[in-house]
């Protein structure tokens, strides 16, 4: 996934762990549902109203093509990018697809560790872990984890965080 041009010097390595393979399904479902709303909003007048303008058919076709491309490409691309790693002193993640983002939070600065499971995620047995620091820009999220893995990460991080003194600001 890397198209780096600069040869010498240090380079960021990818975090070790992949997310769950079912995350592909989750991303595809989520994107698909979003596109469904857009497509329906255009399709209903085209089908029901007799005098629907031609340009509406064009935009419908275009958005259908974009939707398919997005739902097919995005989840697979994301799966190759999204990775995570925890070490005794840091949480390290990579996310995104076209635009990618690495996030790094030292364990000593962690304020809270939460898991969240939306309806789609519950269906697929997935969970999202959010690690917050004192900063408003700081949360490190790991999306699409297997629910059991997520629970284990939370336990580990909670234990190490509690063992670290200081008020983490």
């Amino acid at each position, binding site marked *: *996934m*890397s*198209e*780096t*041009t*600069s040869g*010498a*010097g*240090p*380079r*960021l*390595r*990818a*975090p070790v762990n992949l997310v769950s393979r079912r995350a592909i399904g989750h991303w595809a479902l989520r994107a698909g549902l979003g596109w469904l709303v857009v497509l329906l909003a255009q399709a209903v007048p085209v089908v029901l109203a007799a005098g629907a303008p031609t340009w509406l058919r064009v935009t419908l076709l275009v958005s259908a093509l974009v939707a398919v491309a997005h739902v097919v490409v995005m989840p697979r691309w994301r799966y190759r990018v999204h990775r995570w*790693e925890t*070490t005794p*002193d*840091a949480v*390290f993640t990579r996310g*995104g697809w*076209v*635009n*990618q*983002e*690495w*996030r*790094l*939070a*030292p364990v000593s*600065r962690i304020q809270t560790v939460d898991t969240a499971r939306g309806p789609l995620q519950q269906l697929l047995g997935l969970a999202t872990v959010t690690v917050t*620091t*004192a*900063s*408003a*820009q*700081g949360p*490190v999220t790991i999306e699409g984890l297997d629910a059991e893995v997520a629970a284990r990460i939370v336990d580990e991080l909670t234990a190490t965080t509690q063992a670290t003194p200081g*008020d*983490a*600001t």
Partner: protein
Amino acid sequence: MTPPLPAAPEYVEPAPEWGRLDPRMIVVRPLNELVGLLLPLFALVFVGDVNLVRTLFGAGTVAFVVLYGLLSWLTTKYRITDTQVELHKGVLFRQRLAIPRDRIRTVDLTAKLGHRLFGLTAVRVGTGKQERGGGEGVALDAVTAAEADRLRQVFLHRRAGAPEDGAGGTAENTADDGAPIAALSGSWYRYAPLSLSGLIGVGASVGFLMNLANELDLEFSEFGVLRSVYTWFAESGPGTIVPVTAVATVVLAALASLLGYLLQNHRYRLTRQADRTLRVRRGLLTTRSVSIEEDRLRGVDVHEPLLLRAGRGARLSAVTTGLGRMSGSALLLPPAPRAEAHRVAVEVLGERVDVPLRPHPPRALVRRLVRAVAPAVAVAVVLLGLALLVDWPHWPWVVAVFLVPVAALVGYDRYRGLGHALTERYLVSRSGSLDRSTVALRRTGIVGWKISRTLFQRRAGVLTITAVTAAGSGGYRVLDVGEAQGLALADAAVPDLLAQFLEHRAPES
């Protein structure tokens, strides 16, 4: 042989009884709000045809404001215990706020004109929590000026001073003026017109007056002066109108910004208090005193907007937790000579941070130019298309074409501004052209990294590193830094953190 001394009585805070705000607030709060409403109310009742409905509406507004003031005084109470500050308030929505005293980082004393007539001051405390969307936190609006000053000291003294200055001595100790760091000099007024605030102010008041006139069905031609301006506009050609309007706007904006500078920064002083806080005091009608705990100061931000920079001036603000980002509460130095800004930064941080910065790679220049020029070109093309296809006039796209080189210059200046450096205790990063800002962030205040790379950044081999912190805006960026350069910077800034995730040669999978 002396008998063992009896144990010193434990120091107790002034009895934690519920206190009320000063009763004068029953008058002051409505007064402050009515001052703002004075012009609209006056216009509503007296301008145009006077009629009963309007008069009743005006009287009703005044009565409502007065009644609300009384109710808010009745429902607000506060107390300060050994460990926390508690505040109960709210007329319709009851709120109970409590914040631990050891989390108080800043104390802001603000006295509006109405407050000052009655010798009152509003006290607002900030904690380490980052406030989103301007939540007001714990604010005591208002208590007497002496009580406010006592609270300021009580809130910030907790570690060192508490025992000695207990038992009522504090109110008299207000003579403690601190060691001066900077004070307003008359010559700084020359920087006032170099900010755009005057222009914005003129625009806003013209807009407000036009709107008001519109609402009240006023005809401009009813007033003598305006009528002659109006006829002048109607009779002169664009060749005269444009330059005259431009000159008038510039003069008005300059006067407005001078007035604004006077109102906000009159008697500006920055001092270091004995209790290790920095204290900024300023203001002509509304006076303001902001105290910042020095241990919690995470750095400074030197702002040099384009015009101010052209006049070799700068403005300085604090990077700290507990200050709202609105209304300039983090301001450490108003627009002043750049050398003064650097001197104050050294005083405050204890270290020079106006060090030479390392430039960013040439690919960053290409990115800046593309991002500046592309929108200007797009606008010109669209306007040209409209002119050819839909009968639009031709001058818009001609103007847009002339703006392209200007955009390119701004892009080049944005690149020239980019730079970063590490000093002993600070990470320094500079960016921006129209609003250039140089941030010095304390390295120990960095609570994480965010490294982002867009598709184009990956192709160009650059990345944007954000130092995440609890203070200020929550994160400060090092924009478009070379990949190896940026990672080395982050690694050096916070040792033993990033290193474990770096590899030195092996290709990524």
